[in-house]
């Protein structure tokens, strides 16, 4: 008999099995099975609420436990949908490259790591998933094979390792002080003090490095811009989110007793700086993929802007709603950025380069891709009815209500700059060539981008109440 809890183990096991099978038999790729496992977790959380599975019947501290609540389910859903889109795109993108052989196993391994990370219930397993994620992400990024890609991803790998080791040192401190690794037991035991503060600082520091929070963002643009397009999409949409997700969880669920307003304000200030600097660099970027990568730096900044405002609210419905807005922003950026990178990949493939100033005629040659780019841009700017619009609106409202008006100017300036960099590309994409005959030129590579962009702009904005319901917000 299958219980809802078994969906948790399957969400990790199915992609892992897929990775092993595609590594052994490169010809018979069945990447399509992996999203199904994620769907099941989402459905189980939707119907039964928070789930917890202790694998093999071994409880904490020895056993490995998996747990899923609305927050994890939302990210499992993001991974399943974005992953499915990227898999379809990649099956078209990689058909002319021999590196496809390496792509599928690594991609499924990355999927395993992501699902395991969303569902892990103890800090050491989180370390293992962080390392798995870092290793598979750097290997995927280097698939482009150029010197620039190798150098950028070697640096990405080392940065990731540094971040994970810092996290591990924090884990050691926690185990020394509280004698447990289980997140639930830690949350109950944790008390303000030098050890807890040091552990939190180390772990959040490691995560900030992995999330590319300004000024630790320097590794992201070269690594994300030099990878093959489907890989850039995974890295920007999902992998960076993993670190933000963990920071959020630690901060508000497990270390809530240790947080000070000053620390929250510091994260918010770094977020604001990231919004301004990332958007400015995106506006000045010469290449399309570099623009998309800097835009990721800015969008991650927005997510950290939520931290001081969450801190200002007492636990309750208000805070839950702001948390929901954060998740909405994160999901909406995930879909939009995946779509943006896939569109950039199609444009680069078609034009043979991605220099923004020389992209004239793209709109006529690749109408579907240009449309997807525009839709994704709408979500990045935060125009209605995108999910980011709702998210930014709630962020703005809460900043004013909390009397922390100083977060408002960077927020608005970021939106304006985002409009600048999106329209800059669109204005170059049109010229006086004849009107296109076909909307879609290469269905397999173009349609996923379009679908993901529509989710970001339409589905998330108009269907936010479903997300609220999944997150358990009244």
């Amino acid at each position, binding site marked *: 008999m299958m219980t809802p809890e078994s969906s948790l183990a399957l969400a990790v096991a199915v992609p892992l099995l897929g990775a092993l099978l595609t590594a052994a038999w490169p010809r018979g790729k069945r990447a399509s099975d992996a999203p199904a496992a994620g769907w099941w977790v989402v459905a189980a959380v939707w119907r039964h609420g928070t789930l917890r599975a202790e694998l093999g019947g071994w409880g904490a501290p020895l056993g490995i436990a998996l747990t899923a609540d609305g927050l994890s389910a939302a990210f499992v859903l993001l991974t399943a949908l974005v992953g499915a889109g990227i898999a379809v795109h990649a099956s078209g993108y990689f058909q002319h490259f021999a590196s496809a052989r390496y792509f599928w196993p690594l991609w499924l391994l990355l999927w395993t790591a992501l699902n395991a990370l969303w569902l892990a219930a103890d800090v050491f397993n989180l370390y293992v998933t962080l390392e798995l994620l870092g290793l598979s992400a750097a290997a995927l990024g280097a698939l482009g094979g150029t010197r620039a890609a190798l150098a950028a991803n*070697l640096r990405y790998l080392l940065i990731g390792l540094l971040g994970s080791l810092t996290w591990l040192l924090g884990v050691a401190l926690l185990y020394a002080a509280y004698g447990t690794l289980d997140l639930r037991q830690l949350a109950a035991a944790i008390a303000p003090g030098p050890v807890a503060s040091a552990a939190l600082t180390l772990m959040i520091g490691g995560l900030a490095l992995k999330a590319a929070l300004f000024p630790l963002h320097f590794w992201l643009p070269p690594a994300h811009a030099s990878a093959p397009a489907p890989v850039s999409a995974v890295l920007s949409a999902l992998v960076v989110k993993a670190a933000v997700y963990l920071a959020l969880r630690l901060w508000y669920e497990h270390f809530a007793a240790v947080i000070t307003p000053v620390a929250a304000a510091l994260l918010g200030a770094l977020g604001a700086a990231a919004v301004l600097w990332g958007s400015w660099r995106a506006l000045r970027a010469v290449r399309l993929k570099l623009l998309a990568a800097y835009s990721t730096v800015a969008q991650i900044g927005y997510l950290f802007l939520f931290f001081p405002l969450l801190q200002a609210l007492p636990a309750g419905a208000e805070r839950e709603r702001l948390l929901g807005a954060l998740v909405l922003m994160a999901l909406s950026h995930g879909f939009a950025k995946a779509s943006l990178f896939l569109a950039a990949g199609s444009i680069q493939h078609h034009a043979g380069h991605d220099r923004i100033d020389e992209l004239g005629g793209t709109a006529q040659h690749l109408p579907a891709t240009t449309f997807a780019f525009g839709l994704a841009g709408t979500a990045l700017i935060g125009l209605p009815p995108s999910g980011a619009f709702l998210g930014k609106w709630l962020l703005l409202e809460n900043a004013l209500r909390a009397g922390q008006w100083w977060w408002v100017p960077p927020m608005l300036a970021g939106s304006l700059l985002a409009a600048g960099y999106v329209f800059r590309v669109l204005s170059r994409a049109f010229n006086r060539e004849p009107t296109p005959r076909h909307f879609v030129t290469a269905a397999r590579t173009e349609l996923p981008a379009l679908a993901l962009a529509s989710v970001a702009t339409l589905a998330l904005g108009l269907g936010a109440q479903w997300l609220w319901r999944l997150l358990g917000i009244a």
Partner: protein
Amino acid sequence: MSAPFLYGSAGLILFGLGLWSLLAHAPLLRKLIAFNIMGSGVFHIFIALAERGARPPDPVPHALVLTGIVVAVSATALALALGQRLEEPDDDTGI
């Protein structure tokens, strides 16, 4: 001064030395050695935590260190493989 304290502080010092070297030195090999020294520092701390006086040592940190070593070896291998490809003569054709 107790043995666990000595081990624990030695671990912290190793972590700090490794961190400094990882950030300060450009050659990949030095960075990788530094990363492994940082890792050893953390493992040191875990081993020191396992000490429980007269009772047998706590097995959980031991299991963590074993897992950590496996992870560190794989990470070093991947970094070396990437580094080796960088050393090869320029070839921009892709893998």
